[in-house]
């Protein structure tokens, strides 16, 4: 089978993220990295390959993003993908969930994957939804927040937490599965894999190359618009204690609890 893993380049966790007040978009300048949630999806693909229940012919990392996003693909390849596809075009800038899902769905369709894996959320957009959008475009069954995948007889047996406890769902291939971060502990890439990543095939595609209708992506194709950016409702900042002398720290905590009659 062929597995495509959707990945994204996001601002590094250490970068203070902000909205660009003029463009009304997330300011994505500064240090960037592979979305940490995506590493779980790549690891899940590797474990399916190594599990041996099904022969994995190829693992392909796929991203949509600016020119710089090739670095996220290199990282994905260093973690185990065999090659990568980079959808990049100025026409895609400003795409919302609806437009992004359509664009990614179109690129994925041209790869004819048996399984599409992705992380539960992006570290920046926090949308949780792209998997289900892409699945509808591809007409594939889909589950999100999956924390266990077993391959049995060409089908996937998936577990996840839903509203009323743990659900076990059997999904036929081809399918789109978004994995929760509890599914595995991603491995670290070896130095050799990091060095070798740049040499693996990377296919760069424009909107025209991918057969994407330009009026359905970017600002023009988006179906939502940011009207205003406001500060959050203010909550009074709490008191902070840095623990230097633990006896003193504990005394202060107990005093604080007593003041509020919580030790009665």
């Amino acid at each position: 089978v062929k597995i495509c893993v959707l990945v994204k380049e996001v601002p590094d966790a250490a970068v203070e993220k902000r909205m660009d007040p003029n463009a009304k978009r997330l300011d994505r300048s500064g240090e960037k990295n592979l979305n940490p949630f995506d590493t779980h999806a790549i690891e899940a693909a590797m474990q399916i390959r190594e599990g041996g229940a099904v022969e994995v012919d190829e693992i392909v990392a796929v991203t949509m993003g600016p020119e710089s996003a090739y670095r996220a693909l290199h990282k994905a390849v260093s973690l185990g993908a065999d090659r990568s596809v980079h959808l990049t075009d100025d026409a895609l800038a400003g795409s919302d969930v609806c437009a992004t899902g359509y664009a990614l769905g179109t690129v994925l369709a041209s790869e004819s994957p048996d399984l599409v894996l992705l992380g539960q959320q992006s570290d920046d957009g926090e949308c949780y939804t792209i998997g289900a959008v892409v699945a509808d475009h591809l007409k594939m069954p889909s589950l999100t927040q999956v924390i266990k995948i077993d391959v049995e007889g060409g089908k996937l047996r998936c577990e996840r937490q839903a509203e009323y406890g743990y659900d076990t769902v059997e999904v036929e291939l081809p399918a789109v599965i978004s994995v929760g971060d509890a599914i595995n502990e991603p491995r670290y890439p070896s130095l050799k894999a990091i060095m070798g990543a740049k040499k693996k095939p990377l296919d760069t595609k424009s909107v025209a190359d991918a057969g994407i209708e330009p009026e359905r992506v970017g600002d023009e194709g988006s179906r939502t618009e940011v009207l205003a950016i406001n500060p959050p409702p203010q909550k009074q900042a709490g008191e902070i204690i840095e623990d230097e002398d633990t006896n003193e720290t504990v005394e202060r905590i107990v005093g604080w609890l007593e003041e509020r009659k919580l030790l009665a």
Partner: protein
Amino acid sequence: MTAILTYALHYQGEFNKNSLGAVSEGAMLAGELGGEAAAVVVGGDDLTDDLCASLGRYGAAKVFRARAPEGLAQPVVDVMSKVMEDEGFRYALFGGGLLGFEIGAGLTARLGAGVTMEVTAVKVQDGKLVAERPILQDSAVVDVGYVGERGIVIGRLNAFEVKESGQGAAQVVDVEVQLQEHSTRAVMIQRGEQRGADVNIEDADILVAGGRGLGNAEGFDLCESLAQALGGAVAATRAVVDAGWYPYAAQIGQTGKTVAPKLYLAAGISGAIQHKVGMQNAENIVAINKDPNAPIFEFSDLGVVGDLNKILPKLTDAVKAKKG
């Protein structure tokens, strides 16, 4: 004119609280838009006329009932997209919860409609819905409008209050929907499995909650000793429940319980949004975490930056001494 369609999730003969919140919110917004609110229910024989009609109490004028597998999103996408197109609904609205996210996302693709998620409030501006959505770990709130005729709103957990409108029974309409082929290729094998012991955290005045920062399952011993000293119970985050460190019944947040105790002491919890939505209404929040940048310090009343293994045992002893 039809304005807003909501999805009402049910399980074992009862509607989900967040779904009832969405039905209530939908009815209120539909009133402002000058239209009608309705709900879709999907399932089997347990969807009796009486149960469906009871959604009228929360303001649904009609309830569209479809016979299809329950607990999975894609059959509901098929039903809702058909009802929205046949009946001319403009908006679909969902309470917080996993299925709402999946159904809303599927509808976005199917209808080519805009979607907003993690929405905390919805308002009407110039005859259209505008969603308020916190972003970047709640450091800003954006107002998002919809382009075109249709829009999908996915609420954050507990964002919409359950309100009885005093209206009578809803009209129940059966709809026949041919499911798409792909919607039949996922099959529920087991639903709602409870893992681990049954514990009650919803009635506790004091909760000591543990997260990944405890390091391992044994770390919960520290939480249990402290909870015992304080006269409270122990709760947990999703990460540690999924890791098998603590029972599911003690889980706070998005797919777990929502609590509002007098004291919530968070030990080794970073404070992700999915956790925050389940406990932010606690009267007093104390957080202990070794990472000074943990988001939980943004909404705790008392934050302690330090090592749990050093602080918790001493705190337990001090509380015991104080309470005698």
